[in-house]
């Protein structure tokens, strides 16, 4: 993989995390193709090949519905989210880029110490459309069997 692509992915992944952490959720769907597949899956289900996800979006519509609900409809306490993404490694397969990286997601509730909400791998498939890299697939496989509390935003 070229250094240019590596830098492009690093920038994209940082931007993706920034949009969620900054609360610009209406921009989150812009990172995906339509249709696409976005899933948050426990390592347990993933390893056992069980199809259940914590979150599953299959189209631009579903991504937008989730973003809207998270921002406007769901009821949850105030909190700060901070993603840390590392070890991005990718390979080009025809017109697709297959990438893998690690993530840690910290959640800080008011008057609580920050805690790791979930931690795991991003398994991605990206394609270039009109010069822009987009996720055709982003599967977030988290290691911790038990989620502390709720996951109120996309990972």
């Amino acid at each position, binding site marked *: 993989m070229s250094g240019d692509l590596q830098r492009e992915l690093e920038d994209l992944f940082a931007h993706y995390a920034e949009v969620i952490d900054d609360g610009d959720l209406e921009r989150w769907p812009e990172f995906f193709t339509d249709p696409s597949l976005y899933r948050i899956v426990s390592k347990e289900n993933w390893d056992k090949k069980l199809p259940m996800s914590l979150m*599953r979006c299959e189209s631009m519509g579903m991504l937008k*519905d989730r973003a809207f609900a998270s921002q406007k409809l769901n009821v949850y306490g105030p909190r700060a989210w901070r993603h840390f993404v590392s070890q991005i490694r990718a390979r080009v397969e025809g017109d697709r880029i297959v990438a893998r990286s690690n993530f840690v997601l910290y959640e800080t509730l008011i008057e609580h110490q920050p805690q790791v909400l979930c931690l795991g791998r991003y398994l991605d498939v990206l394609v270039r459309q009109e010069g822009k890299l987009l996720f055709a697939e982003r599967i977030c496989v988290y290691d911790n069997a*038990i989620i502390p*509390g709720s996951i109120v935003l996309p990972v």
Partner: protein
Amino acid sequence: MTAPADPLGGFVWPAEGDSRAPYWIYLDQGIYRREIERIFEGPTWSYAGLECELPNPGDWKRSTIGEKSVLIVRGKDGVVRGFLNKCAHRGVKLCEEHTGSGEEFMCPYHQWVYDLEGKLMGLPFRRGVKGKGGMPDDFDLSEHGLTPIRVHVRTGAIFATLHADTPDFESYLGETILGFYDRIFSGRKLKLLGYQRQRLAANWKLMLENIKDTCHASLLHVFFVTFGLFRVDNPSKVRMDETGLHTGLVSERGQQELTDGTRQMASFQQHLALQDPRLLDTVREFPGDATVIMHTIWPNLILQQQSNTLATRQIVPRGPGEFDLHWTFFGYEDEPEELTQRRLRQANLMGPAGLVSMDDGEIMIRAQEGMAVDARSAGVIEMGGRDYDNADHMVTDVALRAFYRGYRKVMGL
């Protein structure tokens, strides 16, 4: 504040009776210990798992009854048995994974080996080494097996009890609740779709209450209301067993029209449609008009048919202020793939990231925090009156009153 240690020394149930739930029952350590003894380790059937999690001989799963880790095992004879999850030798936890499969159980510490029926098969150095050491001559393998627990399997689901006097499962559920139960667990083979697990900083009873509190669905869950999946004026029923501890909550999907009920909700937003309606595109798969049946089965199970989402939620208490919730999603082995896909999509509403269930988890935590402000005050449970009768609408707290009447009896409060 922390509540005094002795529940009976400092606390008296409010004079209003079952239309009040005093906050000390959610906060006090003494009350919690009594709940473990009288409820979770008392004569109750706790949900332990689904048969489809251990389809073949030798398959096992780890589960939890109250605070106790247990193993549910399918023997070579196909029979499902239960054991405490600890080695009979020095108490080492036997199984660590959620599920597994094998011919036997071996404790790694001193390699005691048990068969699938819990019998101790042998142990190294039993006769000593070169004439030295070993177990005494009168050591009897048959006296050192795994500790068995009573298990009952009924059409796909597995229940267990730690108490000798627990009545048979069918009388325990009662006719009404059994009728609802058999609708989901009809004998059709189940297909396991996967798990969701979360830990909530709230008292375990709040989870059961949340389901029995039928009013909240049309108020708290703005998502439901916004997209017309649930309205307070939907035809519905609240059904209870004789103890009041189990409940069946039935509702039918209503018309998408602005009615008096919805107009009263501060958060109601008109004219909203999903960008991708597949999320709520449900199909009728059970006979009758009910589109949702939520069961609370005392003490640790919520069994749900929420449109095409079938799931068990297992409650594991972890002290007065915390519980784990294990969601197991399933379908039927003989169902079309298209229906399975609907279930996977509709599961977006459930669990720790659920468009609906996330609200419940968050509100329970907030309730726990609020109640701790004054353990001596009490919650008001008067919607729908002060009676205990089955209702044909959802604008009532009747299932909560019946629940606390039953709870007080069990707890001696």
